[in-house]
């Protein structure tokens, strides 16, 4: 993966991610009946060897995440991570269950998987439609931990360097925050840029 990625390529990736996240926000808005606030997407290249805890809040924060592996002309992983304090609020709002009930706990993973799946499909589906390509998805996977740990766990697939595109969203009325991450496999960056440039 090139470290000297051009600023116009970063812009192109941000733009396409922005469209996808916009579509996700629309779906999430319909699902939660609450306004969704989005941050401007950020694109960075990480060296996982140098990735350490204690530098950035959103990477260190203990989160519950849903991730989906995608394969096509470019491949990688997209994940939605909810900080722990947002999880209970989101699940209560989605299921109508009260705090501390056993039902709430049993519905937590199911609910997060479905919400995460809808958000991820919004992002990746939009990107795929814009690029006129098809991506195959694996079954969504639920995990807990810090984002750093989750990225490091992908080391086998991604070698040491990963491109991470991310954006934050807030479900305003529920006071729920979340982060959307897209990690691109080695070699996929050039293909993605090439396809964006064909639009």
């Amino acid at each position, binding site marked *: 993966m090139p470290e000297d990625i051009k600023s116009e390529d970063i812009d192109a990736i941000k733009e396409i991610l922005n469209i996808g996240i916009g*579509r996700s926000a629309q*779906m999430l808005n*319909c*699902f939660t009946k609450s306004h969704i606030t989005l941050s401007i997407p950020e694109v960075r290249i990480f060296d996982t060897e140098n990735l350490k805890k204690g530098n950035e809040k959103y990477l260190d924060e203990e989160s519950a995440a849903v991730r989906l592996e995608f394969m096509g002309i470019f491949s990688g992983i997209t994940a939605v991570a909810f900080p722990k304090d947002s999880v209970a609020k989101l699940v209560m709002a*989605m*299921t109508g269950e009260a705090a501390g009930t056993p039902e709430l706990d049993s*519905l937590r993973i*199911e*609910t997060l*998987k*479905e919400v995460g*799946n*809808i958000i*991820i*499909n*919004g992002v990746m*589906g*939009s990107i*795929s*439609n814009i690029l006129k*390509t*098809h*991506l195959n*998805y*694996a*079954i*969504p996977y639920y995990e807990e931990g810090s984002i750093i740990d989750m990225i490091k766990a992908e080391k086998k697939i991604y070698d040491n360097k990963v491109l991470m595109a991310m954006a934050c969203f807030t479900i305003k009325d529920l006071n729920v925050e979340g982060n959307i991450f897209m990690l691109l496999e080695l070699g996929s960056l050039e293909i993605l840029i090439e396809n964006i440039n064909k639009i």
Partner: protein
Amino acid sequence: MALILVTDDSFFQRKIITSVLAEEGHDLMEATNGREALLIAERKNPDLILLDLLMPDMDGFQFLEAAREKKISAPVIVLTSDIQDTTKGMCLKLGAAGFVNKPVEKEKLLPVINRVLSE
């Protein structure tokens, strides 16, 4: 009123879908993957099948292929989070009678169900 088979590996989604359909007075059956749906469809002959795509064991695409081979007569509406145009095209090519994106909205789902049931 119709006998509808709701196929989704997510309990959460089945709960949402069945509550919408029960309000309309439909009789409901549930399956958690394509294989289970195929068995139920063969035995109970539903009027309509609602089908998720990403499921363990047998996914929605495999179900559509198997249902065609086994000549399952019930029409199938695919209900998925996958918004790719190509996915919709693949499902319709495999014989799906309708394609609706999640999140499930009563106002979006019911007209498609009514259309398919009346065909």
